[in-house]
């Protein structure tokens, strides 16, 4: 694909704006977005563990970030992303392995449930801990 014009004008896959919105499509996109967010979130967790192993001053800086409002927001969004990616990941495994939950009705219902699980689960974790 060195040139801009395609030598073989095969049909292209329809793009985002052509698809009608559907909850399963949103769930799929959210899986990718949360996965990417967790990728960069792991940099922060790594920083925490490095500080824990090396330097008490850095650790107290990280502690103050965690207890600040923006740290709390990041932690909450991290919890939402973890729970979402976790639940939807299990769904992917059930789809790929035993082919459970593949029919459209079930897939749509489970999508809604996973969103609710992620948000309320993260809220429950925050309510249960003294981190706030």
């Amino acid at each position, binding site marked *: *694909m060195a040139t801009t014009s395609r030598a073989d004008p095969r049909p292209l896959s329809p793009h985002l704006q052509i698809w009608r919105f559907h909850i399963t499509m949103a769930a799929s996109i959210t899986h*990718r977005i949360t*996965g*990417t967010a*967790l*990728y960069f979130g*792991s*940099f922060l*967790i*790594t920083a*925490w*563990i*490095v500080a*824990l*192993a*090396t330097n*008490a001053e850095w*650790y*107290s800086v990280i*502690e103050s970030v*965690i207890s600040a409002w923006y740290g709390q927001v990041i932690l909450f969004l991290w*919890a939402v992303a*973890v729970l979402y990616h*976790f639940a939807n*990941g*299990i769904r*992917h*495994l059930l789809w*790929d*392995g035993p082919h459970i939950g593949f029919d459209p009705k079930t897939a749509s219902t489970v999508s809604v449930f996973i969103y609710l699980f992620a948000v309320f689960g993260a809220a429950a*974790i925050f309510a249960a*801990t*003294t*981190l706030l």
Partner: protein
Amino acid sequence: MSSHDFITPAKMARGLGSAKSGTETHIRQRVSAIALIFLVPWFVYSIINAMSGDIVDAQVWAAKPWNAILLILTAGAAFFHMRIGMQVVIEDYIAKTGTKSALLILNSFACIALFVTVALSVLKIWIGAGV
């Protein structure tokens, strides 16, 4: 075709499809996902507890052998899983070969570097505690 008489048509076509390869990546992503089903709940629970106390509490927690082992296992499975996930995202959205290759290499380096960093940090805490 005379020089290829012993090569079957399937052999000629194999590996030339649009995907070229990927089955092993697909399987690896799912195997690491299965490991993470067990590791992530432990990790989320533990890390929140560890962050709630002060640095000494967190170090005592990380120095316990089971916690140190599970931390390194979680890091291994997570960074392995992350690397494949980001690889797929890069392959899907970056069309330019040069940029794509550079990002794929950067992704591999980042995930491996993060794993080594976490593993060494945990080992340092564990050995430092003298358990």
